Each structure stands twice: as C-alpha cells, then as structure tokens.
C-alpha cells in the first residue's frame, strides 16, 4: 500500500465560540486503506469529518490533497476533490426516491434545455447498486421513506460510490443496523478500500474497527492521541487510547492529556 496519504490535514484548529473543539489535529487518509477514526463522545470526530466535508470552515491548519495544498469552502469543493461523506443521519431526503437521492445536487442534465436526464440517472443508479451486490432493494424508484435502516445505509454508501470518489468518509455506518446488515456494510467497506479508495470509518464499535481498519487514528478531547497501524496495537491499547489518551509509550504526554481534560 502507498505510504503517501491521499488526504492529509495538518494542525487543524476549530472553535465554536469560546470552546475549542479541535487542537492542532493531524489526520491522514491513505489510498486503498481503511482509516478508522475513533474517540469517546465529544472527542471531535464528527467535527473533524464536517471540516473535511466543508460543512464547517477550519480556523487554522492546512489541507493537502495528493500532496497539493487545497482549501475547502463548502460541500461542493469537497465533492469536486472527490471527497464524499456518508453522514450518521444519512442526509437522505425521505420524500425523494433512490435515484433522486443518489444524484441530488449533481443531476445529469440534457442539452440544450438543461432538463433532467432521468433515464441516464436511473441506469447509472441501478448499475452502481448492482456492482455493490445490493439485493434488498425492489425498485430504484422507491421513495426512501419506504426503506429499512440497512437499505438506507446502502443507498447512502452507493451515493458515495456513484461518483469517481477518491476518499469516502463513513460516519457510524453500522450504528443502527442488525447483525446481518452490519456484516454487509463491513464487507462493503473492505471492498471500497480494495478498489483503491481512501476510506475513513468512524465507529464506536471496537470489533468493527479491529476487523476492517488498516490504521487507527484516536482522538482524545480534541487532540490526536495517536495514529497507529492496526497490526501494531491490541484491542486493549486502543481502548486505553480512547479513554485516557495514552497507552504505554504511545499517545499524548501526561501533561497534555491533563490539560485537555
């Protein structure tokens, strides 16, 4: 696997009013690998994700994409770079059907009037779902409100795959799913990485993380405790990093950890 990150964030600071949520965070995503982003509630995982996606502007710090410095001002900038986020609350529109949701904001249009090219969108949506081995969706013209939680997650991920994305960020993709559906989504995550994408997985479930991740970045109260290879650490060490910010020689200096708290 390549050792130069496809997406690299250096020294990211982010505050909401007087509260500093991210302290000089470094975060890397490598092509063809699954990077797990873990941390306790309020550690800043979702904030960091939203900074990547252009939902929140960053206060300080640099973002590099394939080694080139970039600025992300909004969701469209992130999308243009090939960064796609699958949010925890999915961000699907219940009243639209699967095709409409998958192409929302990036509709295929016909010349010369700019009207929507429904046949083209429907065909591509169906091809994408087939390529992901989605077998549970009856019709791509079903409205999302009629889908189950697992089906919605699949649609949200398929939406991310539809475009020639380089980096896909998954925010708690298995949180609301049953055993079988979790299995499907985790397989899907591995397949995304195998096809060369940089995948970021945010999860509270350590079993999921230890199973599919290649590397793990731990956030502790807005600071990066450590970025480690999964093979180099044990389950217990990751839990210690999450709860105390350090384990053995890895992690934050005791002084820094105390200051954060």
């Amino acid at each position, binding site marked *: 696997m390549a050792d130069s990150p496809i997406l690299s964030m250096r020294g990211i600071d982010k505050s909401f009013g007087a509260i500093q949520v991210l302290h000089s965070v470094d975060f890397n995503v490598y092509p063809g690998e699954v990077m797990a982003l873990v941390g306790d509630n309020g550690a800043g995982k979702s904030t960091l994700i939203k900074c990547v996606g252009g939902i929140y502007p960053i206060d300080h710090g640099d973002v590099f994409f394939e080694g080139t410095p970039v600025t992300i001002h909004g969701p469209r900038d992130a999308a243009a770079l090939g960064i796609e986020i699958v949010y925890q609350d999915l961000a699907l529109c219940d009243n639209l059907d699967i095709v409409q949701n998958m192409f929302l904001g990036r509709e295929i249009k016909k010349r010369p009037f700019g009207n929507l090219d429904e046949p083209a969108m429907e065909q591509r949506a169906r091809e994408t779902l087939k390529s992901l081995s989605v*077998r549970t969706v009856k019709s*791509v013209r079903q409205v999302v409100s009629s889908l189950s939680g697992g089906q919605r997650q699949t649609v949200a991920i398929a939406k991310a795959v539809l475009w020639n994305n380089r980096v896909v960020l998954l925010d708690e993709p298995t949180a609301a799913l049953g055993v079988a559906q979790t299995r499907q989504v985790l397989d899907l995550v591995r397949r995304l990485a195998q096809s*060369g994408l940089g995948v970021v997985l945010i999860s509270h479930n350590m079993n999921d993380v230890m199973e599919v991740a290649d590397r793990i970045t731990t956030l502790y109260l807005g600071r990066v405790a450590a970025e480690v290879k999964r093979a180099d650490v044990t389950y217990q060490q990751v839990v210690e990093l999450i709860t105390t910010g350090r384990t053995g020689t890895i992690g934050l200096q005791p002084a820094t950890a105390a200051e954060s708290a």
Partner: protein
Amino acid sequence: MTTQGSTPSPVEPTTSTALHHQEGSSPEAPSHSITDFTADFGAANLRETVHAYIAKVRGGEPGALPALLGLVVLVLTFGFTTKLFISVGNLANVPGQAAPTIIIAMGLVFVLLLGEIDLAAGTAAGACSGAMALAVNNNGNLAKVLHGGTFGAYVIFMAVALIVALWQRLWLGAAAVLFGLVILLTHLASNDVVSIALAVTTGTAIGVLTGILVARVGIPSFVVTLALFLTWQGVLLLFEGNGATVPTRGFAAINGIENKNLSPMWGWIVFVVSVVGYGTVTIFRSVRRRARNLSAEPLVLVLLRLVLLIVVGAFSVYFLNKNRGKGLVKIEGMPWIVPIVLVLLVVLTLLLTKTAFGRYLYAVGGNAEGSLRAGINVPRMRVSAFTISSSLAAFGGVALASYSGGVNSGAGGGNTLLFAVGAAVVGGTSLFGGRGRIRDAVLGGLVITLIPNGLGLHSNMSSAYNFVITGAFLLMAAAVDAASRRRSAV
C-alpha cells in the same frame, strides 16, 4: 492502486449471492426477481395496475383521489338538489370564479413544498392589482395619484428588491423587478398589457423581500407573512383611499382575462392541441422507457388516463361552446382564463418535475439539512419559492380585478388567501412540506369554488353554510394529509 478508473462503479461484486442469481438465471424463481429491480417496470396489465394503485393509496399516497372524490360528490349533490347547477349558464362561470384562487394557490404550492407558508399572498395580490388599476387609469403616471411620498416609497421598495435579487443572484427575478421599475418611472403602464406586467413584477419584488426576511434574516415565514398580510392591506388603502374602487372594465387586456371567450373553433383547437400534446408525450415516454428497460408507467394506465381526459375535455369544450346568452346577446366559447390556467399548469409542472430547480424544492422540503450537504443553496431556494409565489399571487390579483371589474380598497383581503391555501391542501399538497403538485391547485381550487357556487343556487342557504361546509372540506383534506403523512412517513 492509487488511481481509479473512469468507471462509475469501482467495486467488484465479490460476494457470491448476487452473481449466482444472475448466472443461474432461474426463470422459475420470480421470488428472487428483486435482484433485477423488476418492481421498476411496474404493472403489466390493468388488473395489476389497479392493485398497484390501491396499494399506493393505502401506503399513504392518495394523489388526486380525495380532490376528485370531492368534486364528484359536490357535482352530484348540487346536480340533484338544484335545477340550475348543471346548466351552461352556471358551469361556464366556474372557471372564472375559480381562476384567482387557483392561480394564487399555484404560487402557494412552491412555498408549501418547502414547509413554509405565505399568509400575505392574498393582500399582496390586492396591492399589486391596485397599483395596476391606478396606473392604467392615469396614463401610467402613478406619481400623479400617489401622494405623501407613497410613490417615492414604492420606487425605493422596487430598487431595494432589485439589489437584493442581484445579491441573491436571482437573475430572472432581478430582470422582472428591473422591468417593473422601468414601467413605474416611464409611464409605460398606460398600456393595459404593460400595467399587468407592473402588477406581476411588483409581486416579484414583494416575494424577493419576503424571501430574504425568511431565508437570510431567519424570521419564521408565518410571522413575516402575517405582518405583511396587514402591511399590504394598508398599502392598498394608501394607494386608493378608504372605500374607493378603481375600475378596470374599460381596459381590454385586463377585462378580457376573465370576461372574454375564445371562438368555438379556437376552443376545439385548444382541446386538440392539449390532448395530442399530452397523449404523445406520455405514450412516447411509456413505450420508450420500457424499451430501454427503465421504470415506466404501464401503457394501459397511460391510455386509460388519456381517454378520460379526452372525454372530460371534449364534453367541457362542447358545453362551453353552447350559447349561454339570454335573449339577443350571444355568449359562447371557452373563457380566455381556461387556456391561461392550462399554460400555467403545464409550464409550472415542467418546472417542478423536469428541472434541477424543481427537484431541489422537493429536496429542501423533505430534508433541508441533507439538501445543504448535497451542495444545494437552501436560502436561495427559499427566496426563489417566495418570489414565484408572490409573482403568481399578483397575477391572481389581476384575474380577481378582471373578474370583479375593478379593484376595491379591500381587494385580496378576507378569505382570499385562506381559500387559496385551502385549495392547495384539498388538492393534496402537504402543509408539512416535500409533497405537492401544481395540479393540486387546480383540482382543489375547483372544489373550493364549487361549494359557494352550488350553495348560492339554493335560495334558502345563507353564506353561513358556505363557510361551515368549506371549513369541513378543508378539515377533511388536512386530515387526509396528516394520515397519509403518518403512513408514508414523508
């Protein structure tokens, strides 16, 4: 490994199941047909179609059904209880009576789709048509009739709206407001057609400013438009003075909207063009999409609907073409307002269903946060919706002026707005946002109009019944809306 090909689907289906279903191509196993999205292709025959439709209604998508049922019930009730209801003289009045409500409701659909409300649409319609009537009666010179700085305030109002529209990059809206400003300053509104444009563009300006207060300042639309409901009422009083009525009968274009008829031959031409156009488009779409293995409506359903449309349409045109004049005066033909409403219906429906703009309206109404993340400029969508709503409301005000032969100082007040909201909701547009069609405004507007029309023919029915029955219909429609919302969770 780092670069990725141009294929839209970078993932190989490595798990076996999906492939095996396809490779094993088991024609004997329709239960596995879900793999191939067969449900996309819809029902193949009439029976399946009926079943699918019933399932859809039960699943919380009643569509046009409640409004159509309402229409049937009203027509049957009034048809059996009064002599005059089903007569050429009465039914030919219905399009004209319904049109102002329908046009204002069409605009409201845009706002309701976002889950917002525009309570000021009625009085805005009154104020805009008041400006039109005054201008056209005074050779386009509003500066002469508007005293006490009112004219200056009007000009400043339009200029501010223009700046805001440019700031929000609403180019069409900005062009419209600029045109209105030019009309205002150049006395062009002495021409009756241009004076109508003054009313509509004033509505555009009102919509832009309403939208900006809701979308950028962040005041709830209920409060903004409640305040503006009062404001426009006052503005109309300022324009005209208390108790005044400014006539519009003498101006051909304004008067013609509601009071002139097409010749019988033109009525048939409108009918043929509509039916052939609609038929070609829907049949062609169904056949071609099916041929390309895309989801498509079954041809039976398309043909059935077309036949229904032909029967109802032909009957209406035949009916409207009969002489309904009394004595020597011959009155016949389709009222002008019918093709006007039809054109609005088609254009606005295309806007909602065939453009990205329309798609985004539904998306914002369904999930504003999700739309934002998809890169949609949500505030701009809100401003656009209010702009369209108020522009259409102003045109509804013009129709109202045409219908009543002038603009009185209370025009657009009272129940005008409530009936328009009622029309949209009775037609099937949801008050919760995310669901609605332009068609709803037409069907609902007809229902809302038929109630007073039919009751008026009962000599012993007071207007009290009118309000009570209209209220009951509205409640039923809102109940259907809430129930279907619970079922479909939209």
